[in-house]
């Protein structure tokens, strides 16, 4: 099945490159994203747990995030067609080919059962994302593209050093996670520590957390907004899945305590970065990108704490994907209506697009982790674990930083909804279907906050059982 999926992705990307009109590109896109959704369903029904092409396994972790990818990328594709309809054919083709290849490489990352294969496809996501970032062909998109490709490639190269160091414990260079799990505990602790730091630094450019978070922020800023939704969720999830697989390995080693400390440190610094820059930035796309840094910082803290907080971390990433993609899809509409993403130029949205305003309200309340948000459940679990582990310093730091985050989010939301501003002349009409597509994703996250179905809980528990 994986062979078929990858072949279809390459084939459709090739056909898109040969397409002579926007309509042909669109038709090919709908075929791919429709098939992708079918593929997700058929994995769920027929191929759970099976190994594919030696390097891929349809395990629970991959299936969860591939399901999210299938839904988010379909909406992103639909919205991209709405927003980029007037683009010339060549950039339109490049954009859609890049989006498709990004989805295909992220899928390969989700299902990869081999550390080196994960690395290969993570680097492939860098190249695909570059096509999305450069879409605007402006000075800022050129700058963002350079920074993204250069820093990600260098970071991923450092991660490769970590992979090589981990390979010292393997037999005949077998870098499958299963083989590594059997032997990693026998590794030299010093090499294991260095390997983990290199891998974390490399993956941080995808996860949008400290230390290489800046490239993710710039990528979100420069890419067209529907693509930002994909970068902030699908790509971030690829980083998370890769890190979680490595984390599972290190949980069985004598250096696990040290690894937890590193994750806590990176998590706290990421939340700090989010708290500071959410207040400073004057651009909605950068604003919500910093919110991703803050949320993934909380996820790292969850991983660092271990125990029930690991469940919370997986749940948090899943809920964050729904909320953040929904918000970005709404932000795309806002940018189209106002002709800008500058925070100080946008307001009175409640009078312009009532449903969109409610959607942003619900999305921001979800990001604030207030009930009935699904993020409330995960953050509550993480805070419980912080207290249970007796780390009161961490509790204090998190509470203070999250207060800043909540203030910034609430302040910007009220400004967006109610600040009186003059609407630009000749603004675009509100597209109801576009608004609904973002709203439904946010609603889904709220439903998950109100009730967590047993099958989903069991599914996540099967992910964290090792």
């Amino acid at each position, binding site marked *: 099945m994986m062979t078929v999926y990858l072949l279809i992705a390459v084939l459709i990307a090739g056909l898109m490159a040969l397409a002579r009109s926007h309509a042909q590109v669109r038709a090919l896109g709908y075929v791919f994203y429709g098939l992708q959704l079918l593929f997700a369903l058929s994995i769920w029904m027929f191929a759970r747990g099976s190994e594919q092409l030696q390097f891929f396994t349809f395990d629970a972790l991959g299936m969860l995030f591939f399901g999210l990818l299938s839904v988010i990328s379909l909406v992103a594709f639909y919205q991209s067609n709405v927003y980029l309809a007037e683009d010339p054919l060549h950039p339109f083709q490049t954009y859609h080919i890049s989006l498709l290849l990004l989805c295909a490489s992220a899928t390969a990352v989700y299902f990869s059962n081999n550390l080196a294969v994960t690395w290969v496809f993570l680097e492939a996501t860098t190249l695909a994302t570059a096509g999305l970032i450069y879409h605007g062909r402006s000075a800022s998109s050129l700058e963002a593209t350079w920074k993204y*490709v250069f820093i990600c490639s260098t970071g991923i190269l450092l991660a490769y050093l970590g992979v090589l160091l981990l390979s*010292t414990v393997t037999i005949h260079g077998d870098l499958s996670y299963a083989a590594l799990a059997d032997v990693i505990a026998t590794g030299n602790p010093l090499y294991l520590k260095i390997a983990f730091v290199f891998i974390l630094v490399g993956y941080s450019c995808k996860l949008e957390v400290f230390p290489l978070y800046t490239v993710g922020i710039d990528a979100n800023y420069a890419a067209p907004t529907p693509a930002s939704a994909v970068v902030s969720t699908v790509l971030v999830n690829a980083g998370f899945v890769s890190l979680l697989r490595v984390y599972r390995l290190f949980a069985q080693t004598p250096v696990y305590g040290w690894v937890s400390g590193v994750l806590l440190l990176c998590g706290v610094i990421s939340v700090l970065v989010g708290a500071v820059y959410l207040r400073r930035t004057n651009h909605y796309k950068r604003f919500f990108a910093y919110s991703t840094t803050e949320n993934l910082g909380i996820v790292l803290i969850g991983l660092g704490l271990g125990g029930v907080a690991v469940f919370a971390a997986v749940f948090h990433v899943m809920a964050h994907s729904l909320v953040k993609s929904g918000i970005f899809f709404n932000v795309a509409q806002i940018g189209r209506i106002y002709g800008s993403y500058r925070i100080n130029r946008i307001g009175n949205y409640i009078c312009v697009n009532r449903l969109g305003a409610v959607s942003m309200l619900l999305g921001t309340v979800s990001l604030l982790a207030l009930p009935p948000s699904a993020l409330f459940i995960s953050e509550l679990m993480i805070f419980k674990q912080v207290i249970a582990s007796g780390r009161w310093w961490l509790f204090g730091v998190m509470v203070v930083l999250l207060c800043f985050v909540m203030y910034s989010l609430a302040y910007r939301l009220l400004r967006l909804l109610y600040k009186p501003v003059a609407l630009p002349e000749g603004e675009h009409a509100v597209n109801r279907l576009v608004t609904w597509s973002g709203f439904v994703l946010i609603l889904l996250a709220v439903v998950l906050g109100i009730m967590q179905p047993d099958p989903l809980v069991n599914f996540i528990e099967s992910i964290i059982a090792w």
Partner: protein
Amino acid sequence: MLLALIVLYVVSLLYLSIIERFRHYVMILALQGWLLFGVALLRWHASEWYELAFVVTETLIFKALVLPAILYRVIRRTGINRVHTASVAVFNQLLMSMGLLLGSLVMTYYMAADTQFDMVFFGVALYAVLSGMLLIITHKRIFSHLVGFLVIENGVFLFAMAIGVEMPYLINIAILLDILMSVLMLGMVIARIGTRYRHMNVDNLDSLKD
């Protein structure tokens, strides 16, 4: 013979810190490609012949021929020539590079003793990675950054040799393609930056901030 190649490689890394023309950067990178090709060839006995044949061919074609050709093309397209905007004086860069060499040797002695690592390879690989980082940090022109990235990549290649890791063909080819595509893409972006900005310094690329 192997030791002579490694010593030459170290000298080429030291020379990188005092280069003043971009063409010389490319020449040194091509030289490093040939040296790595020689190193891979001399380590024929270390593994299965077909695996090393792949590594040797890959090194020759990719590092010694294709990459320098891409870099020359970027230089021709952008018309850049002199590396005159380093943020640190050349002499100081040389001193820093020598310091890194010393640090790498000390670290190697501490880390790689009593292990299966080849200490010479390990030390030089570490020095190559640090030299690449130094090049990126101390130079303002973005072409130098690309060269720094490739120096790090060469260091990682040596590191893989120090460890003696044997990955399946498919993964080796995929890794090679990834890096080649990255370099191609970086080269293309540099060419576009060259048409937009006259000096191609990192100072031109600071509009994205909060």
